[in-house]
């Protein structure tokens, strides 16, 4: 029997919420086609309810993740990089099937995504030393400013560079001790769908990273207005999308950061690996204590 006679076992792609792989509660799917328009896979078409469920999971996971030692977060992010490296082929093939530029471009993107995770793995136990400081106040007080996690942050990945863009937004958010609800690229969603497998095998605690595939316009407004979301990191936003996010965010004054990076920007290490990509997702806390015997 020749190998071509064997029927391939196709992967069922699902959402990744609270450490598990549920189907969307809506029962809807999205057809992903390859560049020639042939059907490739059916992905979950996440609903607004899925988004809200993810926020619940992320909120529940937030105190535990924030409490982990920075060294521990460093190791978990590095573990994600290890697992991603191991699945490089699968990611590259999946990305190349829909994204223009072919397999070699996709492989480059995956490699850059792995390296980005490694860079932020290293930042987890260092950014606090760069962003925080002691303050020389003119009174007998010991005064210092530290960077603390914001809480639950929604990540809206750009359409292009579906893996690298997503990782570039996600890594600073979780590195800082936040938990994340990610809406992956609508146009090229396969990488988002596979990424859950990386998280599930990397000691990332349940709920710390939640991954949704679906139609971005459907989810933005709910995300923006959600009162239990503390921040939003978005890229590839049209002006109207930005307005939607900022308008909704005013509801509970969540912090919105809109990244205008595109194309080559995602590969610019000076820009992308900076601790000032973590800074928008921390809250600076200043502590005063009297000093005197």
């Amino acid at each position, binding site marked *: 029997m020749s190998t071509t006679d064997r029927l391939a076992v196709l992967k069922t792609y699902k959402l990744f919420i609270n450490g598990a792989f549920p189907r969307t509660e809506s029962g809807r799917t999205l057809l992903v086609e390859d560049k020639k328009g042939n059907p490739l896979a059916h992905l979950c078409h996440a609903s607004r309810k899925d988004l809200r469920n993810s926020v619940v999971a992320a909120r529940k996971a937030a105190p535990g993740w924030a409490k982990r030692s920075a060294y521990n977060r460093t190791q978990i992010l590095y573990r994600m990089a290890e697992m991603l490296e191991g699945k490089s082929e699968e990611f590259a093939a999946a990305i190349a099937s829909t994204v223009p530029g072919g397999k070699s471009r996709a492989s480059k993107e995956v490699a850059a995504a792995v390296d980005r995770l490694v860079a932020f793995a290293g930042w987890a136990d260092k950014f606090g030393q760069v962003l925080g400081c002691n303050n020389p*106040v003119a009174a007998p007080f010991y005064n210092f400013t530290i960077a603390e996690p914001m809480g639950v942050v929604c990540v809206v990945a750009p359409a292009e560079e579906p893996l690298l863009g997503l990782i570039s937004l996600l890594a600073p958010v979780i590195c800082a001790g936040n938990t994340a609800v990610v809406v992956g690229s609508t146009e090229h969603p396969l990488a988002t769908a596979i990424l859950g497998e990386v998280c599930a095998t990397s000691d990332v605690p349940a709920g710390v990273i939640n991954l949704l595939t679906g139609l971005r316009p459907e989810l933005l407004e709910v995300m923006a207005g959600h009162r239990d979301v503390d921040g939003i990191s978005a890229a590839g936003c049209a002006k109207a999308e930005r307005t939607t996010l900022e308008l909704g965010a005013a509801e509970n004054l969540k912090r919105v950061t809109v990244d205008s990076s595109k194309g080559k920007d995602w590969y610019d290490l000076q820009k992308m690996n900076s601790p000032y990509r973590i800074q928008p997702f921390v809250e600076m806390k200043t502590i005063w204590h009297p000093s005197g015997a």
Partner: protein
Amino acid sequence: MSPSPKTASKPELDFGNAWEYAAAPEGTKVSIEPKYGLFVNGEFCAPRSKRYMDSINPATEEVLSKVAIANQADVDKAVAAAKAAFPKWKRLKPSERAKYLFRIARRIQERARELAVLETLDGGKPIKESRDVDIPEAAKHFFYHAGWADKLDYVFPGRKGTPIGVCAQIIPWNFPLLMAAWKIAPALACGNTVVLKPAETTSLTALRLAEIFQEVGLPPGVVNIVTGAGNTGAALAAHKDVKKLAFTGSTGVGKELARNLAGSGKRLTLELGGKSPNIIFEDASIDQAVDGVVQGIYFNQGHVCCAGSRLFVQEGVMDEVLARLKVRIESLRVGDPLDKNTDLGAINSIGQLATIKRYIEAGNSEGAQMFQSAAKLPKHGYWCKPTWFTDVQPSHTIAREEIFGPVLSVMSFRTPEEALMRANNTPYGLAAGVWTDKGSKIFEIASRLKAGVVWCNSYNRFDAASPFGGFKQSGFGREGGRQGLLSYLELKS
């Protein structure tokens, strides 16, 4: 406030007539013009609106002066001046920019007495506070930020900080000059130009600051001051040439501004309201803690966004804390703000007094137990006795909403976990206080309080070098310190 039957007790500390009126600082006369125009492009000018509002001394209800109300045309003119001044100010050698700020700091110090008296006349705060806190801290903000102007390349590794452009800054009435300094000093140090809108009831010291800008030769247009009320602020925030808005005020207005700016591409920082917890553990030094509670809620008549308005006391020391607190509060002197012994001055405006009274009524009607000091209040002016409530439930209005007055809600707790849960159970996150003599506990509690500023065994301390700003719905962005610079720079790689 009408005296309550619950407050009939005699103060435990009776000073007799030892503290009759004492004017301070002695002999300082402050001249006030009958009316003030706007400060645009380095000059005072009549408003195009031709409209003025009264500025009232809240301690006497007398009109001090008339202040211009800027309309759209006035705002346009001010923003145009700031925009025109920006390229040159931005390009000015940073060390020269620094020297302008140093000069401003020095002139504030030199005119400190006059500024303190004017601040107290215009806003009603005790002279000892304007003299010892507001004015020296305002000078310090200019002094501190002056030094940053030529050091910005060293602050953010791998990034270059560049100015944003015209900054609109809207400030509140509780620390008029100090808030102007908080806003203007970092903006200028970072190379931006400014249009400032002071609060409608307290514009006079900001206009004195404008005189100082003239005295030190600050280039025209670098700072412009438009006075007025909410409409002026809204016009300023919405102006197309404004690149950044910094607002300090209520959470309600902050949200409205955030909505108005959505999608505009303008940068925004907000320093908003609070309902800050002050937590006393059984192992605290109780005398110090009680003093901190008084400092936390009665400083500046409680017109402080980070006021420690929710007091949480561990059950075992509740009786002791309340007893000592009562003695301490009964000894607070309420009255003439120009008296150097006054602890609580006048409520800033008749409107704010009405708000405070509404909250006190809510506290009573919802079932909390009210106490007020036996202080005698002057016949004229806007006054509120130091007030505190016990038997407060977390659901009570006075435990949830910002009162912005001298009203304390006292609640008890049993365990550190309960204290944290209740302290953090608020949409606000501006500040918090924690009192215990146990080192490990204080750091654990401080690190788990969701607040931008945590005062351990202290309260209401401020410094130009110390970043200030909130978590959650208390706003975003920091003011002061290294982190505060981020509010006024674009970081480029």
